[in-house]
């Protein structure tokens, strides 16, 4: 057997004194062959990204030195002098990142940024470099490479920026490509294209790829082998098919079980009273360019939507499809241009001042990022009690309700006195849910409320939402880009595209017989759909 391309032996990455554990990465060993794709899977804090950084020589300077061995083509990278190592970065080893737009410098054209790699590592003349860059852009299938060469990152989509990053990484034909969650920030259809591109490039150049992800769907699409990490340690490693089908470690089994599956359910029966009736909702965004011309975007285009008591309606679509704007119109954080909103029988649109503030009690929202959705200087208890107090409940009663709600969302009553930074992401999202439910809304909007969470936490929060809905019977408008999640909890799914609802159906029906081409594309792009879909869709469970 030939020597592996990358061979990591007993890698330790220490954390600074005072951290919650001594090592971010502890006694890690694995190897990667030429032309192989190894996925490292793990949740937040598993040390998977730091493993990538240690290999690339990008560990933050505030961390103590890593120890162990990182052999790349027979040389131990950890013992190399910094200057030698820098020369290998970008030429022999390359890396792409999670947020493609943020990973490009906003003030330079993308052409210039890819050219920089050539300038640093070769003696090519500027015109030769430009020709090479345009060839690369063509290879990663960017449209109009000559034009894109002169474009700035903000003028490109996330998918295009990731293609630029890949072009930059492949510029000097590296033998190792490290990809740190390269598709996490992208839409499913874009993600599918990028994954396919990476498979093609591996085929053509024989590049070894170290692919960091938290998504088993992506693993199923792309990996030859999988390494599962937890709290800095390697839990399990093996061929992808084997690990996915017969995970040995208990943790891997737990992770796989938490992965949302495409399990389209039927709508619950016995739903009666309407809590939201939105008709003809429209929102037009206009922006003015420096030249004085106006650009119009129909973010929401004449949408009708009804939600009944105790029902969960999913709103799915790609970024820019208008699903968040629709939600913001429904709760009137964004003022719709047109349309009527009736919430539990009373008009909501057109209300002003005190009447609007009073009516806000009927509809609440839980946002995507639990880290920024809570005021860092407000205790959990005060955050929950604030709403009821504003709506006229006495202080003592509001406090009592806050404590009850904390318990109901699975936290301790003593949590009321603590500040947001003392909680984990999942716990914060529980507080956000308690805060939204404190004013006893008839309609709850969850805007990508589980997207920022690890899969195991995601599953818990989804269960919590379902349980609270069972008890309180609110209507739930659930916005997500993840069809797997939507298929699991929704009674009905509305597919949005370019501001319109193009199709609306109960999950079992929608997934079995999608009417629109666009819905079919979305379904086909779900990562791992070939392997991770459960064959039989669950039968509907009747609501109470």
């Amino acid at each position, binding site marked *: 057997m030939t020597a592996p391309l990358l061979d990591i032996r007993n890698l330790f990455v220490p954390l600074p004194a005072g951290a919650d554990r001594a090592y971010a990465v502890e006694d890690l060993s694995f190897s990667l062959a030429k032309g192989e794709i190894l996925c490292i899977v793990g949740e937040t804090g598993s040390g998977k990204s730091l493993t990538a950084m240690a290999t690339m020589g*990008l560990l933050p300077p505030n961390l103590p030195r890593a120890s162990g061995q990182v052999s790349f083509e027979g040389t131990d990278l950890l013992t190399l002098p910094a200057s030698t190592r*820098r*020369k*290998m970065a970008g030429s022999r080893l390359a890396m792409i990142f999670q*947020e493609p737009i*943020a990973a490009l*410098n906003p*003030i330079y054209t993308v052409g210039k940024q890819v050219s920089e790699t050539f300038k*640093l590592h070769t003696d090519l003349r500027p015109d030769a470099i430009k020709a090479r860059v345009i060839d690369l852009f063509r290879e990663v299938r960017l449209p109009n490479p000559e034009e894109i060469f002169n474009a700035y990152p903000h003028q490109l989509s996330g998918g295009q920026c990731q293609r630029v990053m890949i072009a930059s990484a492949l510029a000097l034909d590296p033998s190792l490509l490290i990809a740190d969650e390269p598709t996490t920030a992208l839409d499913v259809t874009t993600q599918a294209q990028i994954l396919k591109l990476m498979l093609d490039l591996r085929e053509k150049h024989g590049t070894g790829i170290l692919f960091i992800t938290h998504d088993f769907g992506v693993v199923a699409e792309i990996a030859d082998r999988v390494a599962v990490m937890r709290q800095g340690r390697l839990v399990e490693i093996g061929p992808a098919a084997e690990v996915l089908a017969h995970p040995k470690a208990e943790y891997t089994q737990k992770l796989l079980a938490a992965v949302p599956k495409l399990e389209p359910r039927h709508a619950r029966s016995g739903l009666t009273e309407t809590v939201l009736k939105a008709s003809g909702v429209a929102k037009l965004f206009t922006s003015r360019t*420096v030249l004085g011309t106006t650009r119009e975007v129909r973010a929401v285009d004449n949408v009708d939507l009804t939600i009944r008591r105790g029902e969960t309606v999913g709103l799915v679509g790609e970024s820019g499809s208008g699903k968040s704007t629709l939600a913001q119109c429904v709760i009137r954080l964004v003022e719709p241009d047109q349309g009527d909103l009736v919430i539990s029988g009373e008009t909501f649109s057109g209300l002003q001042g005190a009447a609007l503030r009073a009516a806000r009690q009927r509809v609440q929202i839980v946002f995507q990022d639990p880290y920024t959705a809570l005021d860092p200087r407000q205790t959990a208890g005060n955050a929950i009690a604030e709403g009821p107090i504003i709506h006229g409940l006495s202080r003592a009663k509001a406090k009592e309700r806050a404590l009850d709600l904390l318990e109901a969302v699975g936290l301790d009553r003593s949590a009321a006195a603590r500040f947001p930074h003392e909680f984990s992401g999942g716990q914060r999202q529980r507080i956000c849910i308690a805060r939204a439910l404190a004013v006893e809304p008839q309609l709850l909007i969850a805007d990508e409320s589980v997207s920022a969470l690890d899969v195991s936490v995601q599953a818990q929060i989804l269960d919590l939402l379902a349980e609270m809905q069972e008890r309180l019977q609110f209507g739930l408008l659930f916005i997500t880009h993840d069809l797997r999640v939507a298929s699991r909890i929704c009674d009905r799914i509305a597919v949005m595209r370019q501001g319109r609802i193009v199709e609306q159906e109960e999950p079992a029906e929608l997934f079995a017989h999608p009417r629109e081409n666009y819905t079919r594309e979305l379904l086909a792009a779900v990562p791992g759909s070939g392997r991770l879909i459960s064959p039989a869709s669950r039968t509907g469970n009747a609501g109470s």
Partner: protein
Amino acid sequence: MTRFWLIKFLRTVLTLWLVVTFTFIVLRTSGDPVVALLGGDAMPDEIEQFRQQWGLDQPLFVQYLQYVAQMATGQFGDSLRDHRPVIDIIFERVPATLSLGLAAYLMAALIGIPAGILAALRRGSFIDRAIMAFAVFGFALPNFFLGILMILFFSLILQVLPSSGTGTIWHFIMPAITLGTFTAGTLARFTRSAMLEVLEKPYMRAAAAKGVPAIKRILFHALPNAAIPIVTIIGLNLGQLIAGAIVVETVFAWPGVGRLLVTAVSQRDLALVQGLVLVIATTMVLANLIVDLTYGLLDPRIRKGA
């Protein structure tokens, strides 16, 4: 583009008009200029004649209209004291203030920005703490006090630098340091925080992953992105240049606009004060305009109006 410039121009005119009106009202309601000029024991007919000569006998509103009309045609009137056109008096003094200001700014930028970068790169180290201590010292120390201290030390005790006046490069040193210390301190602080933010950005890590050497990463990837807050501070501090000049020019007997303003106010030379305030306001407005334009040069996202 025409629209962009039109809006900028109209805003500039509006700002200047507000400044003109405000100074006019404040000056006319805060005491009789004639009494201040001629002294308390002037004869009544003398005063009356003076009022007529300068139009001060007209109703305030008429005076205001005449004044605005004058301004609009570019005439700032004559000084009440030495009867020369205000504009000439002011422009004699502008070069002195401008050269002192530029020297102070150059010094502030050359010290403050690199110090801020260094502090950010060595965050939490002894160097960082030392630089920040100096920065706080720089903007906490009142500049008249610093000026007097330096005169005491360098002019009176060591006798190596001239304590007042202009003429040689040596004359610049102490006033420029006195005027620039505040800005150097502020710049160091803001450069540090702007750099700290930029250094955390994913594109900095991406640049390192491409094998860009550290010095190039700092100069070509980080600094241009940190420049926007830095330019904002420089723009805001241009006001400090004039305000500071009033004190510094007085301490060092520097024949600039600042000292002229102090004299004009104490002598109630209405026309001169108004002219000076307008010139200073115009400088500020122009500085802001330059800052706005610089944003566009620095950041393509602002340039394209996106």
